């Protein structure tokens, strides 16, 4: 077996962004997995609805709109600093700047986590009260896990940006983190619509 050299790739770069980067695909596939899990929880929510005469069940208040609306709006706002941090990362701007915007996202994330505790109380049911309690808590707690993971990961990338050594692949990581963050916020909008809004109509 003899080999004939027909291409030379030494001049190619060794990092890239978005769909050209394998890590972006790994992130996207993970979003598919988690999205599928959320979709199934939503299906289970509506399936359980059919076992009750009233919804929420008897002697259960409607979930509080106040706290949950604040949380949704906060999370939607948090998309802005994340988007901006990703834009800076695409443009290879200095890492401290990127890090600062990421820390702002972390602050929003922590706020959302704290508000989640109030949202759980605002469900006016316990996970062991009945099936309604179980499924609403499962949805909120699973999403809380994503909020925590997302905030901690963003914090980690921000720390790398401040402390260094920063490699160009960390800029890719920032942009990929942004996609994950959009998923965390986007999935919450959908889940919020199910748990806090649609409950009033079905």
């Amino acid at each position, binding site marked *: *077996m*003899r*080999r*004939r*050299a*027909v*291409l*030379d*790739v*030494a*001049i*190619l*770069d*060794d*990092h*890239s962004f978005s*769909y*050209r980067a*394998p*890590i972006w*695909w*790994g992130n996207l*596939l*993970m979003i*598919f*997995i988690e999205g*599928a*899990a959320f979709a*199934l929880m939503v299906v*289970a929510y509506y*399936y*359980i609805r059919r*076992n009750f005469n009233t919804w929420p069940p008897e002697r259960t208040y409607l979930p509080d709109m106040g706290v949950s609306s604040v949380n949704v709006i906060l999370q939607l706002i948090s998309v802005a600093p994340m988007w901006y941090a990703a834009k800076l990362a695409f443009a*290879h701007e*200095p*890492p*401290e700047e990127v890090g600062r915007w990421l820390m702002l996202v972390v602050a929003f994330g922590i706020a959302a986590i704290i508000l989640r505790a109030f949202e759980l109380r605002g469900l006016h049911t316990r*996970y*062991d*009260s*009945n*099936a*309604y*309690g*179980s*499924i609403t808590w*499962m949805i909120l707690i699973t999403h809380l896990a994503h909020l*925590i993971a997302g905030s*901690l990961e963003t914090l*980690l990338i921000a720390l*790398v940006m401040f402390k*260094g*050594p*920063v*490699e*160009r*692949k*960390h*800029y890719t*990581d920032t942009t990929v983190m942004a996609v994950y963050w959009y998923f965390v916020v986007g999935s919450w909008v959908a889940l919020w619509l199910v748990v806090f809004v649609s409950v009033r109509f079905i």
Partner: protein
Amino acid sequence: MAYSQALPMREDTPEPPPLITVDVENDVRAKLTATWREKSGLWGWLTSTNHKSIAKRYVITALIFFALGGLEAGMIRMQLSRPENRFIGPDLYNQIFTMHGSTMMFLFAVPVMEAVGLYLVPLMVGTRNVAFPRLNALGYWMYLGGGILLYAAFFVNTGPDAGWFAYVPLSGPQYTPGKRMDIWAQMITFTEIAALIGAVEIITTVFKQRAPGMSLNRIPLFVWAEVITSFMIIFALPAIVVSSTMLATDRLIDTHFFNPAEGGDALLWQHLFWFFGHPEVYIIFIPALGMVSSVVETFTQRRVFGYPAMILSMVSTAFLGFGLWVHHMFATPLPQLGQSFFTAASSAISIPSGVQIFCWIATIWSGRPRFTTSFMFVLGFFFLFIIGGLTGVMIASVPYDLQVHDTFFIVAHFHYVLLGGAVFPLWAGFYLWYPKLTGRMLSERLGKWNFWLFFIGMNVTFFPMHILGLMGMPRRVYTYLPEMGWGGLNALASFGAVFIVASGVVFVVNVLRSLSVGAPAGDNPWNAPTLEWATSSPPPSYNHLFIPVVEGRDPLWDAAPGELSVVTGLRTDRHEGLVTSIMDAIPERRYEFKKETILPLLLAVFGGGSIAIAVFSPWGVTIGAIFTFIILACWFWPTISPDSDTPVARRPS
């Protein structure tokens, strides 16, 4: 950022580019061998991130579980060989058939199909490792952890006993108290993480790391099969993640997902489980279809006929596979109109399978068959799978299924499709790829014994079960009365199991013996067309000396004889590979693979360990989360080294 326009393409130069000199090859070989050398000893074994080492471990572990599952099956057959047998009592029997199903489905079938993919896909697409080498290692350790958890529990009489499908309320806290089903649910967590990791690896590797020139329409059918399967895993496994979590919380912290007294629903479990469970069997089956294609093309020396039809068939099977799950629930009170839809869908899935079968038959007709053991296993696949497929279409009919559901007719059906449709192609794959893995040829004589013992044993064991089901014998019974008249056929079925065990022994002897006395294989003993045969047997740790350039669908048949077009320019001082575009595999950038590290094992031990502890105490979840965060922080923390990509200059403050 500089793409193909900067690279010299063949058409630009008047004469073909030069052959790489032997000196240059030796130099590159020496450098790559040094860079990619796997560490030796126990530490090397525990820290390896080489996809071939990990995949070999995966396959061997899966085969050990196959043997354990087979032993469990042997015990089932011994107990059922006579009416009112007292070989095993009901409690142990219920654990054993649950272990048999869980082992075969979660610890053997899906892992082995993924593992064969994890070994072959990087070789077949012409890259040096999977996209995320450390994640790959984590996947194996999680899988091993899940298997050990399950079997450790079984050996201390805490094995699950509510069936591999764990229907509630039987598997719930009230009717199966204790830790048995909690351990089952956590085993699911381990194995499902491993399966999802494998799927992410395969998709990312195939999308972004194919050899230049391997456009979408030049991807080998086996690789297509693995990619399609991986997408199925991504969308199907979350269903059992969600349902097993619901079962665990029902059992451990008193949630009410499946408790009818508090608005929960026993049918919710069935819907969620089977939404996973039906695609699961296609997850097992589709890689086998890829293996059949590889074997058919190799041993008829013809490319498989109808390449686009073959791919569309596998894709249709994957999509349709998500629309069949209710056919496991025909005996439940679901509306009849809805059930008819699932009859139609369950029958329709025979069409893509039919397309593939006819394309293979056409390929064989046009080719020159060689009756190696591998090819015989594929012929056996046809004989057996078609029986299973036909009984499958029969039970797609609601009225028919209402009679044979939960009887031995169903047991016969799914063993024909799983053993005949997945395990026989897998064995065909073993006989095809063993020379590549080990550099030695398996004995054809022992191989023929392996095949015939397996084929005869399968039929003697499982064909009578069709009749037993029609005679009224339900499933999952630890004994039966003598006056039912089932004794004769049960004895026959148990007798057949002896042949299957014997065939397994012959296989193990063949594999072990051939390691030392098998004929040396060389690079491509079968004159097969795909890229894994372009490198040595066994492949070096860096897979290919130079990344190949592909000019057709059958790279080694389309290339000039004795020659291979390759890519130069990748670094030999670090683990480097090539990232190419999705559609046409045009080179985009160079990519660094991560080297060996102990972190995946640590994450599996601590993260996985806390999942196991969570069965006994909710603190397991909290502690696990903390450990996971710490280890993941180490995982992603930057380390400056000569290998790293150019560090970013920090602006002076």
